[in-house]
């Protein structure tokens, strides 16, 4: 068994900071006999901000320091989101709140090119989601977690190497709490190395059975069973914005973080989705919600990002945005070579729908349409708008014009004959269309193919009901 631990030392800060493309001096505070700084970022630290400092003092040091309240729920949500993303590497993983995850990766090593390569891909991926992590791969989950928490990055090949690596760490790394640490110090120990050299026999009596068991699990001498993280059946990701966003295009960057996370989740489940639901949470009450859709299941974050960009361009925000939520459900199986299965069906295949997705995202659903034939004699009902690719029922008419006017245009009449750039030549053929009494859209018209003095051919009719005038209804183009 091989375990890969991901430790996120700055998670309370990063739940906010990962929404920003550019680092600003920032710190997270929490209530501890007054509002105190929990953690500051690099720029805050450079200005002299330190953990434990009252917020007021920190702000006196750095006037442009952004202090934000710690949000434990957001931290847990971030950890869960990261776990969902990790599904692309392995289905076996556990949450280790507050700041870590551990992945069982024995089965994934070969697929990802070995331990070092896998570790690198995980570390780069986590970095791309906006987290600073130390990742460590070791033969036991506890060992990997302890080493990662101490900032150890890299691969520990076997139990012997693990023991050596642990031996160099301070006693506090074991996580026994204040009392446990006190007990160990009272035994005269200074590091984990000294503890490991003690004879096992008396250890349980002096130190407690539970703690010794913990130690043995770390070293891989007894099995270490951890609750398995059940990957959710749908994705829900949230990102807190460190700075209120008022321009929709400034949302692209934080949205991309969520799309990357979703991409990993979908890859782990070999699935795609056709619909993303976005919620933009405003400072005051309320939220803006919109849906991004595609014609077929997709998971590529880059593709979703392009659609999102177009959608955000025509979005006007009623108020500033403080947080984003991305939801995706109804996962559909997706395999890499999905479309190439039957290349011989080329002619019958529907055209690529990705173009439709892009056009709809920017122009709106109603701007992207197909034409559908209808079995009706009335020209305005012999067709209708439909979804692109929708199959109609009617038949073609070679005697019809290429263009139809949405509204028939009344024609000027002179000497009882219709005019359009001069007197129209009505030709010899007349077609009477008289129908529709049964659905309340009755028409009674005589249609002619008229020719203008310049040779342009028009489709005109004389209304036999009501106004009895002449109308232009189509152009032969």
């Amino acid at each position, binding site marked *: 068994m091989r375990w890969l631990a991901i430790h996120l030392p700055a998670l309370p800060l990063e739940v906010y900071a990962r929404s920003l493309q550019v680092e600003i001096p920032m710190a997270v505070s929490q209530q501890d006999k007054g509002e105190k700084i929990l953690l500051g970022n690099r720029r805050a630290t450079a200005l002299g901000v330190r953990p434990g400092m009252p917020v007021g003092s920190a702000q006196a040091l750095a006037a442009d320091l952004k202090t934000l309240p710690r949000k434990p729920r957001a931290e847990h949500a971030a950890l869960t989101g990261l776990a969902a993303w990790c599904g692309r590497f392995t289905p076996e993983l556990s949450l280790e709140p507050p700041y870590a995850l551990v992945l069982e990766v024995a089965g994934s090593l070969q697929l990802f090119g070995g331990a070092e390569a896998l570790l690198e891909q995980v570390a780069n991926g986590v970095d791309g989601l906006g987290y600073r992590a130390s990742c460590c791969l070791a033969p036991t989950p506890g060992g990997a977690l302890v080493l990662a928490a101490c900032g150890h990055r890299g691969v520990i090949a076997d139990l012997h190497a693990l023991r050596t690596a642990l031996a160099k760490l301070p006693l506090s790394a074991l996580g026994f709490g204040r009392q446990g640490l006190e007990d160990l110090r009272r035994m005269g120990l200074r590091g984990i190395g000294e503890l490991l050299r003690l004879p096992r026999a008396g250890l349980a009596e002096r130190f407690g059975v539970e703690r010794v068991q913990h130690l043995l699990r770390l070293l891989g001498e007894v099995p270490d069973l951890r609750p398995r993280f059940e990957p959710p059946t749908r994705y829900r990701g949230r990102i807190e914005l460190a700075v209120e966003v008022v321009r929709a295009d400034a949302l692209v960057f934080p949205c991309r973080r969520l799309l990357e996370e979703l991409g990993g989740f979908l890859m782990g489940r070999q699935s795609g989705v056709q619909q993303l639901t976005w919620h933009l949470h405003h400072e005051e009450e309320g939220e803006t919600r919109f849906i991004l859709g595609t014609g077929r299941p997709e998971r590529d974050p880059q593709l979703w990002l392009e659609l999102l960009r177009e959608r955000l361009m025509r979005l006007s925000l009623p108020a500033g945005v403080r947080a984003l939520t991305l939801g995706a459900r109804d996962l559909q199986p997706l395999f890499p070579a999905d479309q190439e299965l039957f290349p011989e069906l080329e002619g019958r295949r529907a055209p690529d729908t990705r173009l439709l997705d892009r056009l709809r995202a920017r*122009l709106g659903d109603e701007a992207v349409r197909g034409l559908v034939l209808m079995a009706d004699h009335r020209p305005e009902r012999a067709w209708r708008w439909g979804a692109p690719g929708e199959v109609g029922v009617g038949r073609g008419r070679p*005697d019809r014009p290429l263009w139809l006017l949405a509204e028939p245009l009344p024609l000027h009449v002179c000497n009882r004959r219709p005019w359009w750039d001069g007197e129209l030549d009505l030709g010899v053929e007349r077609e009477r269309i008289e129908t529709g009494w049964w659905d309340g859209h009755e028409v009674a018209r005589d249609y002619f193919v008229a020719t203008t003095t310049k040779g342009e051919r028009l489709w005109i009719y004389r209304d036999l009901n009501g106004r009895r005038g002449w109308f232009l209804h189509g152009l032969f183009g």
Partner: protein
Amino acid sequence: MGLDQLLNARHDLCRGRAVSAATPAGLSTGFVALDALLPWRGWPPGALSEILTDRPGGGLALLKPALARLSAEARWLLFLDPPFIPFAPALAASGVELTRLLVVGGGEAAWAAEQGLRSGACSAVLIWGGRWGMATLRRLQLAAEAGGSAAFLFRGEDAANEHSPAVLRLRVRHALAGMEVMVLRLRGGRGGTWLELPLPNGGGGKSQFSSPASHKPTEGLLRQPV
């Protein structure tokens, strides 16, 4: 200044008759006389063509035979900001497969045209709306090349005085017997020729073709340059 630099710098210059044997075969226009005038023996493939007309909606009849054939491909026929409703019964009768037809409004013709062309998901993109300058037209031409898609831009006759990177520019007017087509500009060929073409099938009750979808090339009457 070398010839290439000059050609790049001056949009009003173009290389004459450079394409000959290497000219890729185009898609037949469906009119023998027009095909004979064009070095591609048809519409230029993967390129921008301009069709100038004096009436909105004019010139579409000239494309009907080509559209019918293009709609057999598993790609879209994109109509961008058409001036009127493309009438489904007439298109279907010309052999156009309506399920390939995509009608897009929204008034962002330049953007949408580039998307359609570049995606490779369209066999042809027909564009009516939009304002066009040299830079946007050049983008269209590049996108058409990249996507292997034919771009047809319908413009008013006054655009004849504007520079354009289009490889083909035609002026289409109504004539008593059909259409009068004038080749205003042709990359690698001779401009200034004009011819009169009968209308393809449809219109006026009497069909020119025995079968609407036969795509039989229609003879045209070639005239000498004026």
